[in-house]
Structures are given as C-alpha cells and as structure tokens.
C-alpha cells in the first residue's frame, strides 16, 4: 500500500516534469497545403499536435498570441514538408512568427516587426541536441524572469515572495509570543485549556474560510471603513490588496507557527530552565537568554513551515487580493516602495489562471505546468529544509538531555 502511494505521488511529479518541459521545447515548423471549405490553402506553421487523424498547427501570430490555431484533418492534407530554412521568430510579447530565410518577415498589412521587439530567432527544424537544450534553458529562464505579457511568471514570483515575507513579519512575533504564553506561563489552567483547544480548532478551519473572514473583516470591514473615512472615490483599501492578503495568511499560518514553536520549547530541557532561574534570572531573562536560543532551530522550522504553507495556499488569496494580472509590482522604486494596498499576482493563482484560461490554451496549459513545477519545487524545498532543521534540533535536544 505504501508502495502504491509513493508510486502515485512519484507519477504526479513525473507527469508534471514531462508536461512542464513542453512549455519550453521548440516546435518544428512545417510547410502545409490542405483543402478547406474556402478552397485550397497554404501556410507555414508550427505543428503543435499530431496523431493519426488530425494535426493542430499554429500559424504566424500577427494579431495576438493564441489567435492562429488551426485543426486540420489528415484526410484534407495535400502536402506536408519540413523545410530546412524555416525559422521561428518570438517577440517580447510572446507572439510567434514563422518564415523561411533570414530576412525579417512582412505582416499582411505590410509592416515588419522591429528588431528590438525580437526576443528569439530559431531555425526550428535544424536544431542539434545541444542547441535544443540551450534553447530550452534560455526559455525556462525567460519564463522565470520574464514579464506577464510575454508569458513569464516573474511578477507572480515577486508577488509571492513579498506576500510571504510580509506575512512572516506579521505572524512570527505573534506566534512565538503565543507559544511562549501557552507553554511557559499558562500552565494547565482553564484559560490555557480553552485557548489550546481554540488553537487546535483554528488549525482545522478550511483555508477558504480564512479567506472569507479576511474579505469580510479586512477588505469590506476595515478597508471599506478607511476608504469611507478618507472620502476616496475609488476603493483603495476597500478592495483586495497585499496587506489584507498578508494579514489573512498570517492568521492562517498562526497555528502552524505556534505548534512548531511549542514543540521546540518542549524540547528545551527543564534542567536548563532551572539552572537559569537558580542563578537569579527572571522568567523573561530565562526565556530570552537560554530557552529561545536553544529553541532557535524550532523557530526557524516554524518560519519555514509558515512560509511554505503560505506560498502554496491559493484559495484564500482569490478572495482577498491575488489577481490574474496586476499592472504593477507590489515592490518597486517608487515611494513608498512597498505598496500595501496594491493587488498583486501570486504563483499559485497563476497556475490556476493559466490552467483554466482560454486565450492560448496549448501554450498556457504547458506554462501552467511549468509554474506548478516551480511552485512545487519552492514549497517542497522549504518543507524539506524545515524537516532537516527539525531533525537537527531533535538530535541536539537529545545531546543536551544526555
């Protein structure tokens, strides 16, 4: 059974990698001639998909990205060549244009793309293996570091990182204080028991409910109130934004931080606490100078787990501020640099949007898989780091206890 589980999960990963690679693999370009209702047609196009019955091809996208897909039945096909001098031109906005020979192609309306707009010019049918690998690496890098219009996820990446850091700034102090209260001060009294139960139940509340709570309390409640106070005509704080999202995620990850921190506190040997107290330290000094330094790996674990949880969470963000396309980054060179009320893009949200968007389905879906792979690597990597740190803490606690 365990083997079956692992197999299933390994399959998930493998499928993701295989699909993500498609987003970057070069597509061969064919010279096609076929019959259609409008008579015989001819076209230079990239062959996106082919099976025994039909082809799906993508012609030169002069108008907009994703507008030139054509489905051609094999029966209608008159001619299919793979010319050696065929080249694909990719523009910065993600459009692809095919031509033969090196000259810049001419659009149906007579204009030519400016050389500055060209991101990539590849001889699609003549790539050696090394060239293909290099091309794919370059495209993968463009995907990670490129803008949203060109199909890159850089804005989403920035949005995710800023969001998660802001969230951890909010949640860490509160979570650590709460863990200290629960573990060091509250004892086993009634209020401690009640709050402990509350914490356990908060951990079990579905994430989307946190999102709704954030929407009701922060966006519509506080944000709407602030807007009303400032008499602003357009909603500034009364819409979803970075701050509200970070606050919502902070509430969502609070139980994670508290539970991980408490585990670390519980592993600090009582002998060390008593040693500090017996020297005349106050409880605050004992905690600050002995307990917290020893539990530092646990704090790190808590931080990483919270970040990983927040980075992978999408549902609550859909309600409080993550959007499909944000015109500006939440962090830029303009005062006040960090724009707390701005809407932002998020990696998880991008996966969702790319997967279900209609504009340019074949490319978007492949990119959705690439974005998902990126997200998976980030989140699973963070979690693995947390596990390693935690194991080290346990070993150290064992050393201290011996």
């Amino acid at each position, binding site marked *: 059974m365990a083997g079956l589980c692992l197999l299933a999960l390994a399959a998930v990963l493998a499928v993701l990698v295989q699909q993500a690679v498609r987003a970057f693999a070069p597509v061969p370009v064919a010279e096609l001639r076929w019959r259609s209702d409008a008579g015989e047609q001819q076209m230079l196009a990239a062959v996106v998909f082919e099976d025994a019955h039909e082809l799906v091809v993508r012609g030169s996208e002069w108008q907009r990205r994703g507008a030139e897909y054509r489905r051609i039945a094999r029966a209608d096909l008159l001619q299919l060549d793979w010319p050696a001098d065929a080249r694909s031109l990719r523009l910065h906005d993600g459009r692809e244009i095919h031509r033969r020979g090196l000259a810049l192609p001419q659009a149906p309306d007579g204009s030519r793309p400016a050389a500055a707009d060209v991101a990539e010019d590849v001889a699609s049918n003549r790539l050696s293996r090394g060239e293909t690998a290099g091309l794919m690496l370059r495209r993968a890098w463009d995907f990670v570091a490129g803008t949203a219009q060109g199909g890159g996820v850089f804005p989403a990446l920035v949005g995710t990182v800023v969001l998660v850091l802001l969230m951890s700034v909010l949640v860490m102090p509160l979570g650590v204080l709460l863990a200290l209260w629960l573990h060091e001060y509250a004892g086993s009294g009634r209020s401690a028991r009640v709050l402990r139960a509350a914490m356990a139940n908060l951990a079990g509340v579905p994430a989307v409910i946190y999102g709704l709570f954030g929407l009701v309390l922060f966006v519509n409640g506080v944000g709407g109130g602030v807007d009303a106070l400032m008499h602003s005509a357009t909603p500034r704080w009364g819409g979803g934004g970075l701050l509200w999202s970070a606050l919502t995620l902070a509430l969502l990850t609070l139980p994670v931080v508290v539970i991980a921190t408490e585990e670390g506190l519980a592993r600090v040997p009582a*002998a060390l606490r*008593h*040693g500090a*107290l017996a*020297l*005349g*330290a106050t409880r605050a000094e004992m905690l600050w100078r002995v307990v917290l330094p*020893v539990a530092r790996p646990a704090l790190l674990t808590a931080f990483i787990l919270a970040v990983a949880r927040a980075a992978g969470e999408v549902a609550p963000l859909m309600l409080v501020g993550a959007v499909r396309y944000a015109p500006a980054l939440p962090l830029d060179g303009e005062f006040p640099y960090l724009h707390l009320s701005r809407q932002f893009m998020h990696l998880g949200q991008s996966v969702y949007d790319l997967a279900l968007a209609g504009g340019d389905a074949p490319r978007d879906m492949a990119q959705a898989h690439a974005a998902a792979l990126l997200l998976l690597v980030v989140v699973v990597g963070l979690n693995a780091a947390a596990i390693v740190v935690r194991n080290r803490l346990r070993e*150290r606690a064992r050393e201290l206890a011996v």
Partner: protein
Amino acid sequence: MSAREDAVDAAVMPPDLLAGRELALEARGLSLDYSERRALDAVNLQVPRRRVTALIGPSGCGKSSLLRCFNRLNDEIAGCRVSGEVRVLGLDAYAETTALPELRRRVGMVFQKPNPFPQSVADNVAFGLRLAGLRSRLELDDRVEAALRAAGLWEEVRDRLDDSALRLSAGQQQRLVIARALAVEPEVLLMDEPASMLDPISTLRFEELVVALRERYSVLLVTHNMQQAARVADYTAFLQAGRLLEFDATDRIFTNPRLRGTEDYITGRMREDRG
C-alpha cells in the same frame, strides 16, 4: 533565642549544637505537598553559616524537595504547595515582598546533573553577571577568571574559554556550574547530589572543592554517599519519609547516632536507595 530553641525538638537535635552560630538557612514547621502526596512533614532544620551541612536519607525522602524550598525552585513545579516558614539569611523566603531573583542570586544551586548552558565556557560563567548589567569586557573577564579559579577549574579551561561548555567532561561541567553559581557572589550554596554522576577522581576533586568553599560559603549538600557526608560535612541531617529524624555534628551522627533508624541507614541495613 528561646523561640528558636522551641522550634527544635530536642529529640532531633541537641539543644546546644548550634549555640552561638549564625544561621544561613532555617525551616520551621515546613510541610510540602505535591498534588497527591506529602513530601515534607513539619520539618525543622537549621543550617549554620560558613559550614557544610549534609542531608542524607533514603531516596524519595524529600531531600531535594527540602533543598528547593530554600531558593523556591519548587515554585516551578505545578501542584506543589508549601506551608510553614523558611528563612534565608534572616529573611522570610516565602514573604510577599521577597524578590525571587535576588533571593536566588544569594542562594546558589548546583544540580545533580551538570546543566551548563549550550554556550561557551566564558559565557556560562558570565551568565549571572550579565543579568546585573555588567558589560565591560575587562570586568567580565576578571570576574569569570576569579569564579573559575574559585571552582578550581581555571587551569584546565584557561585556553578553552570560547569552546562550547558541552565539550567539557562531566566533572569539569560540574565545576563549571559551581563557578557559574559563585560568579554572582552567593552566600549560600545548595547542592543536590552533585557528585552522583562523577567518576571517583572527579568526585575527590569535587569534595576538596566543597571543603575549600566552606571558608566563605554556607553549603547545604544532599548526598547519597555516606562516606562523602562523613568526609566533607560539619553537620549532618537525617531525613526519612518527609521527616527530619536526627540532626547532629557529623562525627557524632556517624559514630554514635541516637536513633535506631539513623544507625540502620548509615550502616546500610536499610539501603533501598538509588532510585
């Protein structure tokens, strides 16, 4: 004078034993209850100043609990209640106005298991000093050295002051925590079976240290080891089942105990200890 005499049962302690001595610690009618059982029952104990007093008795008889009343470390244990009077250096330890940090500074404690903090040797010794707000490197270094010398550890660790304290041997660690306690200039030292984890040579060194400390500190030493009590203590108290049964000068209690129970315990006829 008469009040103190009244508090002490003549059967437990010869009335003139501590005549003319200053008292470091004193418990009067001290009872201690954990949530389910009584650990100490109306104990009257006097610990003289600048002497080593040993507490002996079978395990579970309440020795450690008694010890922890004098620096109120029992406060840390949930469900632990104390009644009766505890005087530390003439002050009521359980009074409302007692500042715990100051009380605990003046009453140092050494635990059964060495518990150095996971910091460097020097930082361990300087821990208490930093609490007093000492920051100057020079003064800290001087005081750390003095404390380590007093604990007889300086020669061994002078080149390893910045090493982790956890890398010292058990005997060195135990002397390190003594140095840590001495650094804040306590007047009383409570020791809870401090040598039980040490090898014979470390134990010997430790006992020499305790004898040397007697010059300046009042020491209350809990021990399982009869020979150790006989070697280092001036006075010995015998505790059994939460009651103080006998208190006398060490040589008298080991050569001529007045109670049968004490004699049985000392001669090993009822040694169910070492839990």
